[in-house]
């Protein structure tokens, strides 16, 4: 079959400038068609994609966190306007996504979820882990965050800690500024960044402790 006999030219991005959301939609469309028709399994695509997830994060988010831990002025800017603060470090979305950083403090723990789909602060965290997209995570985290954190993620927070669950969306992408671990006073930004995990920025985990294997 050729594409030119069908009347209209093939609807491809071609040489024309295409807005990023259009390209992203085309790739989603291709993937949906491939999976529906059984050309590939979602697992097979995930398996390859996961190898590269870290290329778009979450080391970038870790860098932002480490800077916020060491630079109080930057931290303030980050909490005020995360998108702008991240842009200072050359980190940004394709367009439109505004990031909001919520800060963990003694007594308050934040966690993010996307109740409707799988919106995720990918400019800083990379691609979402698979479980983030599962309906079970999305609905249960809202209903019983404390139980989910403990049972599913092994995160045992003190009873007195308040847990806030934030709904992240296509335009407003929340992520978590975890608390700086104790005993990290002399560490450089780079060393600190190595303690920051993806899960700690979603809010289902804590940063690594200094001295633990990285």
């Amino acid at each position: 079959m050729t594409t030119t006999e069908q009347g209209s030219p093939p609807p491809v991005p071609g040489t024309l400038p295409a807005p990023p959301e259009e390209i992203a939609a085309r790739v989603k469309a291709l993937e949906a068609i491939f999976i529906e028709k059984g050309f590939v399994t979602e697992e097979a695509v995930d398996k390859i994609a996961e190898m590269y997830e870290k290329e778009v994060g979450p080391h970038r988010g870790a860098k932002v966190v480490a800077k916020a831990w060491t630079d109080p002025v930057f931290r303030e800017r980050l909490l005020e306007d995360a998108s702008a603060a991240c842009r200072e470090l050359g980190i940004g979305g394709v367009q439109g996504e505004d990031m909001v950083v919520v800060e963990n403090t003694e007594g308050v723990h934040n966690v993010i979820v996307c109740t409707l789909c799988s919106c995720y602060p990918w400019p800083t965290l990379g691609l979402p882990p698979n479980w983030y997209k599962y309906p079970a995570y999305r609905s249960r985290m809202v209903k019983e965050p404390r139980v989910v954190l403990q049972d599913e993620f092994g995160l045992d927070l003190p009873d007195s800690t308040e847990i806030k669950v934030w709904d992240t969306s296509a335009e407003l992408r929340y992520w978590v500024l975890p608390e700086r671990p104790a005993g990290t006073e002399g560490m450089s930004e780079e060393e600190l960044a190595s303690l920051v995990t993806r899960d700690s920025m979603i809010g289902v985990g804590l940063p690594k402790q200094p001295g633990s294997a990285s």
Partner: protein
Amino acid sequence: MAECRRGPDRPPDLTERRVVERLLGELPGAGAIPRKEGELSFESPWQIRALALAVAAHDQGRFPWSDFQGQLIAAIRDWEQTPAGERGEWEYYHHWVRALEALVVDTGMAEPGEIDRRAVEEIKAGEHRRAHSHGSGLLAVDRGGG
């Protein structure tokens, strides 16, 4: 999901980067693939999905890699032959997506227009999500017992 018909088991080393690297090395413009410190680098998740989709489909026997290679050569040539004012910026993965789309239509894996239609649906679904602006922020608070 439809049962996936597969040939022989996929090579055990599929998930290793070197397999992807070998496939990429056979493509035109291999030197133009965005990299940082030697490793593939991506700016957006869709680029990763597009890469993974082509590699996975080839791996599951949907098309020989040389066919994809041919389509990518054509896509890049088209871009090069288009006057600078009428084409987008050089973006390696745009060519990648275009090549994959052309291949999919040429092999009959999708009807002409099918990808277009689905892409419009995806965009609408995105608009719908935005219109229903969830992400209103704070959803739930567990104040704890202490």
